[in-house]
């Protein structure tokens, strides 16, 4: 029922907004703005100096040819000048908007001329030629010869008329009037009147004006044609990056979400992943950890895999990068700081990103074949533009804090002592004196969390000439973590170059260098992870003894001091990454071009790990442990494509692509470790006394691909796309090395049909359908082999043991996806909608099956079983208010349903204690355990439901059942942005509903089985004597029955997070002019302002455990690093 409530609420919210819109917002003309275009081709001209005559006030047009000048008197005159063009002069005459067209020096006369050839373009971005046009239409058009045209021309028919605005019926001067398919054209005069001479009575007149919809009017023998032009919705051409090319959103047949730089630039985000979060339909981004630089889980349209990684493929400027989002140290060691790993995407500075595209359906993603089943994320970085120099500085600084309300409510000393007295009474032994200490009351959560600073600075410069353009940037990001001693620093530099060597040959290079340092801490899954076991240290144990040394729990000699555990160890990772490519594009003939790209992605990761001998109990016996590991992850790729693009017979547009691609990757590392250190002082292995291990490893994989795509469009109305890719991967068995991945898609732009033209409310309507096959190859290298591995040495002699049970038939995971979509624009695109329904069937799942251990192996990868994801997603943008006060709302929601369709070998389990299950007919990763009934009033123990209907202890496995579902009913994000006179405000919310979380932390704070653990204040309601009715059992020394994996620890993980609130102010032009800068914006942001949730843990967005980023192990809170609340202030400055 609740879903309906929420959905209804949202609908009401929307309806109210729509009703409130369309308020006219006349604003005083305190500035003048406009567009400058080239007369030759009506392309916007950047870099044009616009000066107010006889003043020092001036402005320069931006990359889209727009300019803005501060308020001036109504009599002033504007001068437009650009090198290579003739200057133009026009009077402002109280206009708010002055658009103008500039002629090149060598073209015609200085007087703006009427168009003398070809048709007038229907493109709305074009400007009526020859005059300064004006949207307020109260202007005299100077020297308009047409107003005094001759009465007749021999053999021609004289047509006259008035052009008015449909909206307010006022006359429009400067409208271009053309006789279709002729070179005859005129412009309306100050009263909107025109006179033109047509050739025949059957001619058609075309009326066009910037910002208004063009209109064609057949003469039909009439001599007076009055027309009213309607305002055109802002249908800007939206270019979408797709695999191996770009497309106009209007003619796209597939499902692609775009996140533009305007959604990334303004907020202080640590990495690309956060930029995607809550902004794209069908894309679920889960912050696995709040640790700075930590990893995320990204799921595009549900989880399609049980054990193979469900991460999408990341392609940065055409290079499919080493997309292991989380570099988790392999092997047996504590590298990796718990299990959160390093987020390799964090090595890209978000400020450099122009756009992020997410390819969701098979039609868009299957061009990446075997790696596309989890979706493809294309990251495109910024490039320089010719004749437009920009230098901008972005800087922000702030603080992160642990949201206080998210802390666990743990017992203080008094409650703890009372609880422990009961505990020892039940245990039947004397209570240790140390547990009764009353003079200390430590809040351990306050001791391990801190308020930490963060800062970010970046400078970028871009520009260039007609031949060479550049974009270059340097950035520094430093975030200290809210857990002691954790942090992330990144220094990044980028250089993107474009060089047009000749008309035919273009060379581009991209180069990104990053150095990142991650200071990691023990987070989870370790004996004393601060957020798991650290917080249950008894409250009557101090942090420090009186002599300043660390204090330890006297009742539990193995317990670490949580603060010492954070401060004393060293666990850093230094990553140096080079990511870049070089491409040459050669136009063989018009429409046919060849492109070759060589790219590489190299990461060098140096890790230093040190557990000092003093102060860390678990490493004391061996005298501390130190280790170093050096990892090199290399990838190179060569791609060659031929592209053919041509329009035939006006209406047939054909775009063909064919290509081959080779990619090879090599991962190697060496590590060494020593124990027995003399002191805590030097954290490097050279100081250790015993060489306790040294090893090295090398792994390689390669993929070879052949691909082709055809796009065909008829009248831009009927669109068809077909893709085909063949991938060969070294990861699969010799019997199954190549896979084929086809897809087809069609779209119908109904709004382009003549009969739809009259439906004024619908400005854009496109129906899409697609089907295709994609694959998943995210499994370990050499998984098809049955292997012997070294390392089992004995008596200092090498030993080799079987390490893996392979399968020579191992092949792809195959996803067949069907997608139906709609693009809709209503009320001049005041409301725009992208909506999709999809069905994804994944078969031949790559499953790491738990084999019976009697085989000598615990698991083996096999192709088995099927999963289905189906769902509905939409992205809705409404421009609620336009004008001076602008309000835009973007909402996206995804309703995904996941189901395991078949598992021939029965249930598959995963996660700690097999808490996650894959079972036919159930959602993947459902929680599996005993069902709690309640606390037995007689015994004080928890009763669990038995299969036979009785209740009691959790003793028989047959009584286990499904106790929760980690998959949300729906999730999404909502962003509201407001602009008013230089002020901008954006509020972004992110939500998830109906997902359960298995809160394993509750095990720690509620198990009641340990001799000296603190717990939740819930224990104050504990069962004390027969007859007590309560939900908290009695303490149970050395008995885990109450703490078994059960519904007791399953919690509702639904949440609504205020992820980002930003308020900014852009200084007015007159200020910035005075300061000789282009623009200046100041802003303040609160990230993660509040989470509305019933979940009791630190954050309902949780990690899985053990670094597993697989589909099965999911929705599991094992002491995750909490997400901080971050306050920042910053500035964007452009010169």
């Amino acid at each position, binding site marked *: 029922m609740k879903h309906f409530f929420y959905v209804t609420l949202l609908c009401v919210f929307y309806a109210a907004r729509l009703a409130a819109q369309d308020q006219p917002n006349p604003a005083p003309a305190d500035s003048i703005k406009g567009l400058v275009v080239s007369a030759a081709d009506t392309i916007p001209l950047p870099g044009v100096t616009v000066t107010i005559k006889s003043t020092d006030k001036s402005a320069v047009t931006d990359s889209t040819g727009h300019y803005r000048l501060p308020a001036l008197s109504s009599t002033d005159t504007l001068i437009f000048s650009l090198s290579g063009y003739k200057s133009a002069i026009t009077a402002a005459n109280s206009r708010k908007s002055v658009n103008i067209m500039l002629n090149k020096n060598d073209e015609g006369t200085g007087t703006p001329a009427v168009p003398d050839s070809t048709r007038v373009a229907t493109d709305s971005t074009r400007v009526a030629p020859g005059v300064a046009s004006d949207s307020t239409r109260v202007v005299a058009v100077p020297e308009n010869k047409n107003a005094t045209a001759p009465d007749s021309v021999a053999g021609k028919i004289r047509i006259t008329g008035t052009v008015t605005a449909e909206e307010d019926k006022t006359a429009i001067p400067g409208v271009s009037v053309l006789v279709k398919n002729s070179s005859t054209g005129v412009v309306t005069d100050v009263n909107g009147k025109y006179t033109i001479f047509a050739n025949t009575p059957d001619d058609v007149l075309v009326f066009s004006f910037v910002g208004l919809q063009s209109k064609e009017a057949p003469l039909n023998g009439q001599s007076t044609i009055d027309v009213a032009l309607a305002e055109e919705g802002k249908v800007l051409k939206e270019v979408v990056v797709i695999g191996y090319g770009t497309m106009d959103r209007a003619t796209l047949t597939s499902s692609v979400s775009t996140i533009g730089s305007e959604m990334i630039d303004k907020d202080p985000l640590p990495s690309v992943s956060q930029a995607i979060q809550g902004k794209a339909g069908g894309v679920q981004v889960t912050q696995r950890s709040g640790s700075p630089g930590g990893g995320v889980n990204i799921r595009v349209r549900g989880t399609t895999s049980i054990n193979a990684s469900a991460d999408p493929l990341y392609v940065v400027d055409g290079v499919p990068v080493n997309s292991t989002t989380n570099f988790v140290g392999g092997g047996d060691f504590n590298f990796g700081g718990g299990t959160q790993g390093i987020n390799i995407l964090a090595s890209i500075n978000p400020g450099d990103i122009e756009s992020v595209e997410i390819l969701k359906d098979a039609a868009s993603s299957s061009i990446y074949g075997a790696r596309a089943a989890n979706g493809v994320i294309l990251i495109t970085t910024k490039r320089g533009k010719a004749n437009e120099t920009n230098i901008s500085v972005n800087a922000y600084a702030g603080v992160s804090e642990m949201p206080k309300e998210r802390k666990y409510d743990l017992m203080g000393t008094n409650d703890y002592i009372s609880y422990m007295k009961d505990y020892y009474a039940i245990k039947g032994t004397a209570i240790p004196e140390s547990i009764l200490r009353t003079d200390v009351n430590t809040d351990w959560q306050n001791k391990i969390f801190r308020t930490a600073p963060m800062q970010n600075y970046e400078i970028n410069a871009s520009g260039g000439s007609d031949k060479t353009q550049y974009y270059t940037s340097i950035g520094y990001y430093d975030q200290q973590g809210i857990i002691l001693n954790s942090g992330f620093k990144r220094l990044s530099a980028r250089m993107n170059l474009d060089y047009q060597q000749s008309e035919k040959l273009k060379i581009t290079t991209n180069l990104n260098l990053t150095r990142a340092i991650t200071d990691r801490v023990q987070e989870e899954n370790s004996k004393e992870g601060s957020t798991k076991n650290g917080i249950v240290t008894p409250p009557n144990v101090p942090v420090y003894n009186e002599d300043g040394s660390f204090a330890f729990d006297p009742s539990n000699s193995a317990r670490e001091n949580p603060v010492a555990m954070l401060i004393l160890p060293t666990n850093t990772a230094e990553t140096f990454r080079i990511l870049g490519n070089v491409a040459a594009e050669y136009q063989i003939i018009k429409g046919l071009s060849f492109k070759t790209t060589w790219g590489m992605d190299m990461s060098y990761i140096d890790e230093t790990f040190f557990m000092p001998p003093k102060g860390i109990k678990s*490493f004391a016996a061996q005298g501390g442990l130190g280790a170093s590991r050096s990892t090199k992850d290399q990838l190179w790729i060569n791609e060659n494509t031929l592209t053919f693009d041509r329009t035939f017979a006006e209406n047939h547009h054909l775009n063909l692509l064919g290509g081959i691609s080779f990619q090879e990757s090599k991962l190697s590392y060496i590590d060494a470790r020593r124990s027995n250190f003399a002191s805590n002082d030097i954290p490097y292995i050279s100081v250790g006394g*015993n060489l306790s291990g040294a090893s090295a490893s090398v792994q390689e994989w390669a993929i070879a691909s052949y691909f082709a795509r055809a796009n065909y469009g008829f009248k831009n109305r009927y669109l068809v796309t077909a893709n085909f890719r063949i991938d060969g991967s070294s990861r699969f068995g010799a019997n199954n090395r190549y896979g084929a991945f086809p897809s087809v898609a069609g779209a119908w732009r109904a709004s382009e049909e003549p009969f739809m033209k009259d439906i004024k409310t619908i400005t854009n309507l496109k129906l899409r359908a697609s089907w295709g096959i994609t694959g998943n190859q995210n499994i370990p290298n050499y998984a098809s082999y049955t292997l012997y591995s070294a390392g089992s040495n004995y008596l200092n002699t090498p030993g080799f043991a079987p390490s893996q049970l392979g399968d020579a038939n191992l092949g792809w995971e195959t996803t067949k996806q069907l997608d139906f979509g709609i693009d809709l624009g209503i009320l001049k695109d005041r409301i725009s909608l992208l909506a999709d329904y999809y069905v994804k069937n994944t078969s031949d799942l790559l499953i790491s099956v738990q084999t019976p251990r009697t085989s*000598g192996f615990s698991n083996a990868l096999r192709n088995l079983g099927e999963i289905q994801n189906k769902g509905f997603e939409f992205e809705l943008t409404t421009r609620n208010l336009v004008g001076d006060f602008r309000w835009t709302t973007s909402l996206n929601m995804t309703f995904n349903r996941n189901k395991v369709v078949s598992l021939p070998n029965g249930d598959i389990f995963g996660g700690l204690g097999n808490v996650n299950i894959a079972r036919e007919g159930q959602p993947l990763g459902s929680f599996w355990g005993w069902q709690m009934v309640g606390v037995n009033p007689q015994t004080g123990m928890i009763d669990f439901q038995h299969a036979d209907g009785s209740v009691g202890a959790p003793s028989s496995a047959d009584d286990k059942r499904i106790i929760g579902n980690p998959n949300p009913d729906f999730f999404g994000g909502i962003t509201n942005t407001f602009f008013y006179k230089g002020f901008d405000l954006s509020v972004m919310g992110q939500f998830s509903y109906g997902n359960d979380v298995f809160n394993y932390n509750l095990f720690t704070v509620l198990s009641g089985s340990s001799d000296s653990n603190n717990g939740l204040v819930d224990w104050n309601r504990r069962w004390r004597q027969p007859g007590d009715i309560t939900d908290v059992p009695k303490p149970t020394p050395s008995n885990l029955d109450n703490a078994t994996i059960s519904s007791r620890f399953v919690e509702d993980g639904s949440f609504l997070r205020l992820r980002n609130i930003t308020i900014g102010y852009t200084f007015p032009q007159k200020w910035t002019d005075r300061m000789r800068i282009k623009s200046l914006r100041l802003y303040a942001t609160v990230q993660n302002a509040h989470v509305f949730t019933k979940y009791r843990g630190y954050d309902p967005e949780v990690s899985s455990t053990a670094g597993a980023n697989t589909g099965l192990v999911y929705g599991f809170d094992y002491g995750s690093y909490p997400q901080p609340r971050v306050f920042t202030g910053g500035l964007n400055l452009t010169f």
Partner: protein
Amino acid sequence: MTKYIALFIATATLFSCDDFLDKKPVDQIAAEVYFTDEGSSESAVLAMYRTATNAYYYGQAMIITPEFAAGHVNNVYNYPEFVNFEQNNIRIDNPWTTNIWTLSYTIINIANNVIEQVPNVPEGSIAPEKRAQFVREAKFIRALVYFNLVRSWGDVPLILKPTPSTSSLADLQVSRNAASEVYAAIIDDLKDATNLPASYSTLEQTKGRATQWAAKGLLAKVYLYRGTPGNSTADFTEAANLAHEVINKGDTLVSDYASIWRTKNTPESVYELQFDVQATNTLATVSNPTASALFFAKDTVYKSFDDADLRKPVTVYLKDGKYYIGKYPNYNPAVQNVPILRLGELYLIYAEAQARITGSVAGEPYTYYKAIRDRAGLTTADEITFTSVPDFIKEVQREKRRELMFEGEAWYDYTRTGLALTEMMIVADPGRFVWPIPQVERDANPNLGQNQAYQ
């Protein structure tokens, strides 16, 4: 330019993709091509021993878990997963039963591969005596692991062939074999292993790898376990003969009991698992008086020793109010060896088996029992005071409990004769002599069933 492009595409197409995509493991070897010569065969043999040093086997679990079951040790946290063994109330999801089960079959699979593959290594690539030796070493290890399995769980799957990579999952879902079949297979293996050499080139090799003495000693123990009092004395006869042979191989009990653990590879050891800085002993790291201590001795253990007993301070000692396990003293680096079979135990095996065969305490049974007590510095009641063989055997077992304290033996020895019901268990239920089949294993294999007491 067009020409170059055409040339480029032609070259790229000619470029063989199969070679490009054929990425063979770099630092690992495919199983099919592993066994090629003597060196690779020996490496596979050594991996068996190394795997047995794992913390989930003799490196900790295979010792400490039965010691918990015997009620000899404490855990610092009183973790239920350990304490449940002492309470005879082991949950089906207990991690330690799972760990030991998993490691057991991992070692068995390594051994099965050696036994199956080494005979196929080409002639000339391996010396004939080495070929035979490797197979017999593998049989010794396989027998040792099955012996621990059958003692811990009763009926267990008996798998004597390596797991082929072509296995379907259904093939792997095996059923359990009767304990008697498992014993028969263990005895078969050990009989073959008694043909092993008596020694190798170095002391470490001789003690650390299977020899004919190790095989004979273990076989004696296996016969003792299989023997059913009152039925036939055949097994006890075998046990006695083999034990006697090993005892008389030329080594004697060491006079300094402590030296068995403080030094390596004493004459006392018949078979001793070797640990070094690469293969450290986890139990040693966590059982000594350092901040890392997790396991402690119980005060009842301390009290079970006569103060005059020379073994007492070696076995258990009091420090800062805590009783510590004394038999794993080398913790930094933790290179503590684990004697798996030593003469002291064989003396007591011989004493018991001989008493059962002859139906009399007099003579050798008493002499060998007394020899152990003599070394401990204890006086022993006269032979004449032992009037009943069953009573004498109980005394031998009690002596064995002290002699082999913290060596993972007492629980199995007491459940073997049922003495555990009266002198060890909290829940006196013979069904709980064995542990539950791990639930994760039953999840993966529905054919296993569960031991009666845990159903």
